[in-house]
């Protein structure tokens, strides 16, 4: 055990001290945050401004076409399709005279074609204006109509899940996001760190140090030392990423204007309600930030983080042992590794595909079986757990899945240990899966 500890230390320190590890660890969060910031910036700045001249013989459309930050409408008299460009408009919207019960075409002429979303929003506005006009014609006063409009925008769907007596706010979008993100993370981890284990074993075999070490320690100790050491590197990297992303986000929050920050704080204290006219004072951005924080808080984070760590470690141990076994059978030719890796990467990729389906439908039979079978359970169960325990996944399912995974990695480690101890000292022979099977199950 003492020697396994030495091996773990070496595997860990040589990798953590490596420049590549440092660069990847510190660059990754910057890239992630940078990517989010860049896409946010593009979403704002990339939108083109449109100034639309509206020719409206009816007159009632004018009230409904309100300017937005993308489009400004104006209603000049001396503009037509020939001169709208000269007058500085990007588009011209021509509305024919409206006749009841008759389908009418509106014409939009543009210098540059307009995006679908923009077209749809203009069309909606026109139809809304016509609807209002018809209501007014039917005898409803403009003032009543306005008050209805103001009051009718209050419905918002809030879903709750019942847990015995108490019920809790739930959010399917958030669950999907968490499930997908954690499934993806586990998938990537297994690939990256599993391959790292495989390369490490191959390195020891091809530069022949394996025999020197195996005369000092048991092959199993060497294999476990490598697997645990590299797993610890992976955990370190994750922890550093999480710390860096959280601190970078809070630094970014500090750049918000002071009034928005104080409004968010007030919203937090008052649980989203502001007394009297306070609601109106809270700006749109403060509301958005508050809502985001509020939504994130609805998830059962201790459970999700606990499960994530368990499935991360369990899944890693399950697959890393298999990768180590493959590494031990490879000779100088890395091409051998490709073909031997195939039976390991296939279930990984397949599990990822199932995960993407399960994030939307957490309770299908395939979701159940895939979250029990240890080849896919680390990813698929994480996608299901995000929907809540026990509402989406019952306790016995979770416990069964965890127990099967523990049994699974004990089995793969045992199996790989047997393949490894023969493979690591065998040179010049092409190893097939059939041969590996023979090594694993022969006596002695």
């Amino acid at each position, binding site marked *: 055990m003492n020697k396994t500890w*030495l091996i773990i230390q070496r595997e860990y320190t040589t990798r953590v001290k490596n420049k590549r590890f440092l660069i990847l660890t510190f660059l990754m969060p910057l890239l992630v945050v940078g990517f989010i910031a860049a896409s946010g910036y593009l979403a704002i700045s990339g939108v083109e401004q449109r100034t639309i001249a509206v020719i409206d013989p009816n007159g009632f459309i004018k009230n409904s076409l309100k300017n937005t930050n993308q489009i400004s409408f104006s209603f000049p008299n001396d503009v037509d399709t020939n001169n709208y460009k000269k007058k500085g408009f990007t588009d011209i919207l021509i509305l024919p005279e409206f006749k009841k019960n008759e389908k009418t075409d509106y014409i939009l002429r543009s210098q540059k074609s307009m995006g679908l979303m923009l077209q749809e929003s203009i069309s909606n506005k026109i139809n809304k204006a016509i609807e209002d006009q018809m209501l007014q014609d039917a005898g409803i006063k403009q003032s009543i109509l306005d008050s209805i409009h103001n009051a009718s925008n209050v419905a918002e769907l809030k879903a709750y899940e019942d847990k015995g007596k108490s019920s809790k706010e739930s959010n399917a979008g958030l669950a999907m996001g968490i499930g997908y993100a954690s499934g993806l993370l586990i998938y990537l981890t297994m690939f990256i760190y599993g391959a790292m284990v495989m390369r490490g074993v191959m390195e020891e075999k091809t530069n022949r*140090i394996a025999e*020197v070490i195996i005369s000092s*320690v048991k092959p199993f100790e060497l294999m476990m030392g490598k697997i645990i050491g590299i797993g610890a590197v992976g955990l370190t990297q994750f922890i550093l990423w999480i710390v860096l992303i959280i601190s970078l986000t809070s630094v970014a929050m500090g750049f918000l204007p002071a009034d928005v920050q104080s409004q968010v704080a007030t919203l937090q204290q008052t649980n989203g309600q502001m007394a009297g006219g306070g609601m109106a004072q809270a700006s749109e951005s403060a509301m958005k930030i508050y809502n985001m924080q509020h939504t994130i808080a609805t998830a059962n984070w201790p459970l999700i983080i606990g499960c994530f760590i368990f499935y991360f470690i369990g899944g890693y141990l399950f697959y890393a042992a298999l990768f180590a076994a493959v590494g031990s059978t490879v000779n100088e030719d890395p091409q051998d590794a490709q073909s031997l890796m195939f039976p390991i990467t296939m279930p990984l990729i397949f599990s990822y595909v199932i995960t993407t389906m399960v994030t939307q439908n957490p309770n299908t039979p395939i979701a159940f079986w895939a979250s029990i079978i240890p080849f896919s359970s680390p990813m698929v169960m994480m996608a299901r757990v995000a929907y809540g325990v026990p509402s989406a996944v019952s306790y016995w399912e979770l416990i069964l899945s965890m127990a099967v995974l523990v049994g699974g990695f004990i089995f793969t480690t045992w199996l790989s240990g047997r393949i490894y101890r023969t493979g690591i000292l065998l040179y010049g022979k092409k190893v097939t899966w059939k041969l590996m099977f023979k090594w694993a199950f022969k006596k002695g």
Partner: protein
Amino acid sequence: MDPLLRLSNLKKYYATQKAVDDISFEIQKGSIFGLLGPNGAGKTTLLRMITGIFYPDGGDIILDGKPFNSIDDIQKIGYMPEERGLYKKMKIGEQALYLAQLKGLSKAEATEKIKYWFKKFEMETWWNKKVEDLSKGMSQKLQFVITVLHEPKLIILDEPFSGLDPLNANLIKEEIYNLAKKGATIIFSTHRMEQVEEICDHIVLMNLGKKILDGTVTDIKQQFKENSFLIQTDNEVAIPTNPIFSTISNEKNKILVKINEGYQSNDVLKYLLQENVNIVAYNELLPSLNDIFIKLVENTHATARAFQNN
């Protein structure tokens, strides 16, 4: 004196062949022992059983009076495999420290011993270099230091001189003698016969998994001598055919003869003196280990087996 290592009826069978087939021998404390054999004879398999890498399929290994236990006895053994290996990207000092700690030395102990050996082999400046920066001979020296660092009672060297220049080979050779003098037992596996003749006290020759020869170098040479003598004379003489010996060659005052059965070497001298030959020197010609090796191994399909090894 008790032997340090005693192997009795050791066996290791692979699916297709008997790699080590019922081998027994003893190695005395403080001796330099040569394990010889053609490629594929089973030497590496035998050594891997002695170092605890492989479990024997049958037979016993007694090390230092007790049955061999791969966990407790690891520190008593230093093994330098034929295929050398070191971590290419690791610093030499750290690497030596790591491997010594794996053998069970404490960090302080290991550091002290590495410093001693590095100084002895003029390697002090290497500490922070990486193995990939070393020449083949240099990494060979490092490998030797790593093997003997923890003062093992049994040192197993598989082809220790391959790739070394004569100067460094001599340095290692001297060190092997030193270690043996201090009480370490050395198993030396090779197929370079001239080195064995020079260094080893005792040899075992293996072929096709079996022991075919066991004894001291002198005894074996006696056993395989062909009663050949070299006679040097002061001037060229013609030797007539006689019943005592047959002349194999006669060139430039040097006559090589083979004594016929039933006669002693003195009979040759007597005959030559009667013939008035002026003898300057008279030596028995013993076969070289190389000759014995080739004679014993030839025509046994040993080469064919080397290719289907493993």
